[in-house]
């Protein structure tokens, strides 16, 4: 009974709350705003203190990106792409290059092209393509975003490609923690993969060098390093995504406010309550718009 009274006090206009749900009082709304700010501060602190629990690389494994890409290709009547370890290493180098030089683009500020990574790792291509994604919580969202963009979709569904390589890197880009997915597509020039993998060793900083003659040295050290890096990211799976938790909290707060405002609108009209205050209908429209923004804004960018 006491609990029900408390609920009424919080959510329904009544004598106990001066004919206005306690939750809609300015003091309560201010407390709510301060709580949300505190939540963001805690989230930011927790991300720095416990990066393996709160992070941005939620479930992004290169194998999953390849699997989902091939699902899209086979669904469109195309052959699945084969994972190419040289392209994996080249894609990883491209991702690390973006973090090191602090750019988010296909071409580096110094003019380094994506294709120079193919060549510097010894992948002589007949056809080559690149898709980039950042800040997605999982592989599925990134592939979906690519499929929704005509130019990226064209890359994924290009019948000329035979090989695929994925690089997933985590780091700070322009001061923001980020996870970048680099998706390389290619078809080798000779028809068979050229794997001068050892050439890649000196080029992990992504200085493009032409590879004159593929020298086959059997120890693929850079590829091993690449695999290690990527599996490390896979291992540091985030259990809580800051974006998802912020979105859920925002949805909850906005949803409750819309509900309470709707109740307020009905009760005040029905009981013909006169009171000093803002327009409930205007507040409803305001929070309705905010709800739409929360639902539509998505994490992640593609280029």
């Amino acid at each position: 009974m006491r609990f029900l009274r408390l609920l009424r006090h919080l959510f329904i206009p009544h004598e106990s709350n001066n004919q206005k749900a306690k939750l809609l009082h300015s003091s309560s709304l201010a407390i709510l705003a301060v709580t949300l700010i505190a939540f963001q501060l805690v989230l930011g602190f927790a991300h720095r203190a416990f990066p393996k629990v709160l992070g941005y690389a939620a479930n992004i494994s290169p194998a999953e990106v390849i699997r989902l890409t091939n699902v899209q290709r086979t669904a469109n009547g195309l052959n699945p792409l084969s994972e190419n370890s040289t392209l994996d290493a080249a894609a990883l180098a491209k991702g690390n290059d973006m973090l090191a030089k602090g750019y988010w683009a296909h071409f580096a500020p110094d003019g380094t092209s994506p294709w120079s990574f193919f060549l510097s790792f010894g992948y002589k291509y007949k056809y080559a393509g690149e898709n980039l994604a950042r800040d997605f919580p999982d592989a599925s969202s990134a592939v979906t975003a690519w499929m929704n963009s005509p130019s990226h979709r064209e890359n994924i569904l290009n019948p000329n490609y035979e090989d695929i390589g994925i690089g997933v890197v985590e780091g700070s880009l322009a001061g923001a923690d980020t996870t970048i997915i680099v998706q390389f597509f290619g078809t080798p020039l000779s028809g068979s993969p050229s794997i001068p993998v050892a050439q890649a060793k000196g080029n992990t900083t992504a200085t493009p060098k032409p590879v004159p003659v593929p020298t086959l040295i059997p120890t693929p050290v850079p590829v091993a390093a690449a695999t290690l890096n990527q599996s490390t990211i896979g291992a540091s799976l985030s259990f809580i995504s800051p974006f998802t938790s912020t979105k859920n909290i925002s949805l909850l707060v906005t949803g409750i406010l819309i509900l309470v405002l709707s109740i307020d609108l009905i009760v005040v009209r029905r009981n013909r309550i006169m009171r000093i205050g803002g327009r409930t209908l205007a507040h409803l429209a305001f929070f309705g718009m905010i709800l739409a923004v929360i639902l539509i804004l998505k994490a992640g960018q593609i280029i």
Partner: protein
Amino acid sequence: MRAFVKDISHYFVLFGILIASFAGLILFSYDKNFQIAVSLALALAYISWGIVHHYLHKDLHIETILEYIVIAFLGFVIIFSIIIRT
């Protein structure tokens, strides 16, 4: 409902502010700084709308202004939190 019809021109302005802000936030989703600026502009526009609307109604009180400020601030905090996490 009668009050809404009477103030329909006021609400047209309000819906215009909300729709323009919504469009700005979605169309410029690649530019976080612009999105934050749009959110701030939305909050200020909402407060202004509330003040002008109640002033024309001759029922402008300090409590009312405070209510619009707090609602606008809360809305800004919610949108800002989402933007910085995208």
